[in-house]
């Protein structure tokens, strides 16, 4: 284990420390239960040597010992059960805490983190990496603790029976371990290959089923079947190999066990004949010999789990080390916002050196309606990202109501700035919960009002269960216009003083757009409205228009002024961009 790997597992320590009492208890239980289990051959030896193989056998002694042992076995049964439940429960409690801490931590990271890490990776972190920790408790700890104690006890009893014979027996250990590790490594490799091939076969199938119509239309059924057959065959080969190796492993240990017994018969038999050990001892050795394998087997089997736990916990540790770039000042305030916005010489870059916004100066009065236009990549969305404080400016100041945005609490910024984005994000859940964003404290009547305002009420009522309809597949059954209306309503429920529409209508067909257009006009009263749009009809209604190009404000003014100006806006206006708004 490298230094680095170990430090990953360290994240478990503080959690384990919290439950140390239970951990100690569990260890104690394991020791007691294993002792009872491993004492059995020793007891049989006692019975044989002291009660059967004697001139005057003593049946009552046998019964006494048997009954005593029965009591112990019953006790151990209860103990094992209780210990296992306790261990798993402790493990689960720890995993629960880690999960919650991790999720809270990730959620509070800034958008920069989400830009830099694929969502797949983050999801793996929260779901699978923590589940690997869970396996660490359920599989690794249970089996290794029990395995190690069993081994120790077996060694102990063997030495107690007869040291010379015991030492001979231990000669088997390197043999068993060696065989175990070699075959296990092979199995691991084949397993990996098998999983890769399986997922290749499945993803091929999945893709072809979803594209079956295409396959059929292009008459390529046979070609695709042939292709699948190749993958299928590869998969077959590795599953067969995997099975052979697994069986081989199992049978090699069986054979080694028999070999150990044979060895005992040979040498131990001689020892009994010479009278250096009793028959009972020899018998107990044969039983211990066979028992030797199981713990070793179980432990080597768990090495994979340990490995993946180390990898996972290292990843979790790394995530915990990330810190949010956007932080609230300790002195942050949450005043009620009026809606004045000022960009003062603002410069901004996602990556150092590549400014996407340069020297932006802009003043927007409360209640003003401002349109933003510009080619794709001009920096319109970035401007709005700053206003929501998703990112911090690199130069200059961004003010709301004359105060630097950094002086506000995040909660107050995000409570007063509402954004409707082009791609709508809906969540699994009812329409109602989606609009009030799962905040149960917001009454339904509020939601209905917001929906009336934006014109979503009508179609929602036509859904099978109205507001309580559960959206299947995150609303993919709704049309894009309907989805957009929902996201619009969601913003309105929170009644933002500053409302941003970022190409909210771009992906809609003309008819849905008209509906939304009407809604925009209705909700704009009493708010500062910032609209990014490509459609002339939308921008024309604004008090004035800001034209962005390559991160700079190149023009601003009312529609008529800008047209007279014969500048960039005029060119945009003549081009397809202002009209269509669909860009690759």
């Amino acid at each position: 284990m490298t230094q680095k790997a170990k430090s990953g597992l360290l994240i478990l320590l503080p959690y384990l420390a919290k439950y140390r009492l239970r951990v100690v208890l569990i260890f104690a239980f394991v020791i007691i239960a294993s002792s009872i289990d491993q004492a059995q051959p020793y007891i049989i030896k006692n019975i044989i040597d002291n009660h059967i193989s004697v001139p005057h056998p003593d049946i009552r002694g046998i019964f006494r010992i048997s009954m005593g042992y029965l009591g112990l076995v019953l006790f151990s049964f209860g103990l094992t059960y209780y210990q296992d439940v306790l261990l798993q429960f402790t493990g689960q409690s720890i995993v629960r805490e880690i999960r919650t801490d991790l999720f809270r931590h990730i959620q509070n990271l800034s958008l920069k983190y989400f830009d830099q890490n694929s969502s797949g990776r983050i999801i793996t972190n929260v779901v699978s990496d923590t589940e690997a920790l869970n396996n660490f408790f359920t599989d690794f700890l249970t089996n290794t603790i029990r395995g190690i104690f069993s081994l120790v006890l077996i060694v102990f009893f063997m030495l107690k029976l007869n040291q010379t014979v015991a030492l001979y027996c231990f000669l088997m250990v390197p043999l068993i371990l060696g065989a175990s590790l070699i075959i296990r490594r092979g199995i691991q490799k084949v397993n990996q290959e098998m999983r890769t091939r399986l997922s290749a076969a499945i993803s091929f199938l999945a893709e072809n089923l979803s594209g079956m119509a295409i396959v059929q239309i292009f008459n390529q059924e046979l070609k695709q079947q042939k292709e699948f057959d190749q993958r299928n065959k590869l998969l077959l080969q590795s599953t067969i190999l995997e099975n052979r190796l697994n069986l081989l492993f199992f049978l090699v240990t069986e054979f080694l066990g028999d070999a150990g017994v044979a060895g005992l018969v040979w040498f131990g038999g001689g020892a009994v004949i010479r009278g250096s050990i009793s028959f009972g001892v020899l018998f107990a050795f044969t039983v211990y010999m066979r028992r030797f394998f199981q713990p070793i087997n179980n432990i080597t089997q768990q090495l994979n789990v340990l490995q993946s736990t180390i990898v996972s916990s290292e990843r979790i540790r790394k995530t915990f080390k990330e810190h949010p770039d956007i932080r609230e000042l300790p002195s942050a305030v949450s005043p009620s916002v009026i809606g004045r916005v000022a960009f003062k010489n603002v410069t901004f870059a996602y990556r150092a050196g590549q400014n996407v916004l340069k020297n932006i100066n802009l003043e927007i009065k409360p209640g003003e309606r401002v349109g933003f236009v510009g080619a794709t990549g001009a920096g319109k969305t970035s401007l709005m990202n700053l206003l929501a404080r998703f990112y911090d400016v690199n130069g200059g100041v961004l003010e709301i109501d004359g105060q630097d945005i950094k002086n506000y609490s995040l909660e107050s910024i995000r409570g007063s700035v509402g954004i409707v984005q082009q791609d709508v994000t809906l969540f699994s859940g009812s329409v109602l919960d989606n609009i009030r964003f799962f905040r149960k404290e917001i009454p339904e009547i509020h939601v209905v009002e917001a929906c009336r305002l934006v014109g979503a009420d009508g179609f929602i009522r036509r859904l099978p269960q109205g507001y309580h309809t559960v959206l299947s597949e995150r609303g993919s059954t709704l049309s894009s216009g309907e989805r957009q209306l929902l996201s619009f309503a969601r913003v309105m429920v929170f009644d933002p003083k500053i409302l941003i529409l970022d190409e909210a209508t771009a992906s809609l067909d003309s008819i849905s757009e008209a509906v939304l257009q009407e809604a925009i006009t209705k909700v704009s009263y009493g708010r500062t409205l910032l609209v990014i749009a490509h459609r002339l009809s939308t921008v024309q209604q604004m008090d004035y228009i800001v034209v962005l190009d390559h991160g700079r404000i190149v023009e601003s003014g009312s529609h008529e002024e800008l047209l007279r100006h014969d500048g960039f806006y005029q060119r945009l206006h003549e081009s397809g961009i202002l009209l269509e708004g669909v860009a690759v």
Partner: protein
Amino acid sequence: MSINQNENNLEKKKPSGWHIVSSYVVQNWWVYLAALLLIMVSSKLAVKIPQLIGRFTDQLQHGTLEVQQAAHFAETIMLISFFRVTTVWLGRIIINGHGRILVYQLRKQLLKKWSTLSPSYYQGHSVGDLLSHALSDVEVVRQFASMGISQSINGLSMLTAALYMMAVHMNWHLALAGLGPLIAIPILVGYFGPKIKNQSMHYQSALGSMAQLVEEVIGGIRVVKAFGNEAVTLHRFEEKVEKIVHEKVKFVRLSSLFGSLLPFLSSIGSIVVLSYGGYLTINHTITLGDFAAFFLYLAQLRQPLEQLGQTLNVVQRAAGSLNRISGLLSVVPDVVDDPDAKKEHRVIGNIKVKNLTFRYPGTEKNVLENISFEVEKGKTIGIVGALGSGKSTLTNLLLRLYNPPKGTIFIDGVDILKIPLENLRHGIAYVPQSGFLFSEKILDNIGFSDNSPDLEKAEKAAQSAVVYDNIVEFPDGFNTEIGERGVRLSGGQKQRVAIARMLYKNAPIHILDDSLSAVDTKTERALLHNLRHNSSVKLNSLRRKTTLIISHRLSAVRHADEILVLADGTVSERGTHSHLIHSGGLYSRLWIMQSGTEEEQKVVGVDGNVRYSEPDLSEERNGLPLSLEGEPA
């Protein structure tokens, strides 16, 4: 081992799914017989070892044992062990291997069957469900056909052999008493197995529901942050985690109880042998060697008996899985060749739709009503209409993804129901609305209609689809792997690759179903130009294609020879572009909305530079073709 034999037999329809396995076993009876014999021999050998040790013990006790004899015992044990291990290994890999071959064939059969089913089948069965169910069913069959069979044979033959040894050669009272608790093992496994499995599924689904939440939140993190909704989300997350813990603890209660019962039972068995066997030994009913051998038998039987119990579970589950698989394999496809289809008919390209009224099977509402139109070979028809007006349905019918009613759609004068599917689809090249691509190389996607795609041909198709420049910019050019569903391409690039795929096919009929929606206006114009003048595309054919363009953007259809406006499944307007924009109907209203009030348009690249301008509409009204300056970017 030949893996392809007998496949066809799997297809035969039988009431119960067991037939799938039993017929496979019967067809390979000699293999299974050999395996059975091997395993039986192995069991017979295995139970010899405790017996040998028993005899060794007796001789030892009576002092009749010599040291060389001990060595001889040891040798015999090794020898027997070697053979019993090898035989059982062989027997089991034969059975397990064949189980896997069966499963391989099942997977193959499933895809073959799925390839014959039409979209209406996939409508009712989501691909995800179909796949996960089918695959987990296949997995259960694998367990049954390999592990299930081999372990039950092994378990039963070990049990018989050991019982025979103990009861006949030693003492049947003790055999029954000692084995009694162990016989409970398979019963326990059979009882707890399904319960544990069930609870484990609850656990998995709790885990899945947490994963789903995380996925949604991470995917929508901007929204979560924009609304400052972190606390609410965290609370929902905690609920999911709590549920996981709850399910896990329930699971652990069961599995721990089960896990501690097994060793408990075998300990009980040992105690019985210890006391009762000890008593018998003292009575001289059995020898000390018998007594020792009994313990070894108990140890030997424990694992096979546990496995026997597992088999019980597998058998239970396999029954359901096999029935479902046999159900899947016997689905009757609804779109098939007509028995008296005109086998030799080749599509030339004249389309005629006559009084077509259609509703999707199992629905109430007509999606298309009384549609009639004709497209002569080489002409272009445009179809526009709002979402849900029935445009895609029309293409579904033309491609016979669904069967149209008899006598409503004709190609070259032949009812398409009478044209073999293969020929029909050979004659139509199509771009789906979704622009579906496969996660293969770009070349393979464009040349999808070919077994071994031709690069030169693909390049030409890409040029005409105005995607060539994008492709060569990728480091691997046409050999770029596009990732699952083409995630490495932008929406517009995907659509254009799908168009290149259509062009590559070089069929007499082209259908584009709203395939330009993510393509910017400038590129759209260049592309449409290329489509109209595909004589410039040197795809070894200079013939003009019959083209059907569907769009909700009017710019895509304005050059068509005829345009149909669909509204609620009926043709509400029809005519040429110039005719329609003056008719004052929906089309002209849409035209005004989509083009602003301006008639003149210039094209600006995304960088804002004016590249070239299009002649204004007045020229268009004269029916002059659009001219483009230079090659499109």
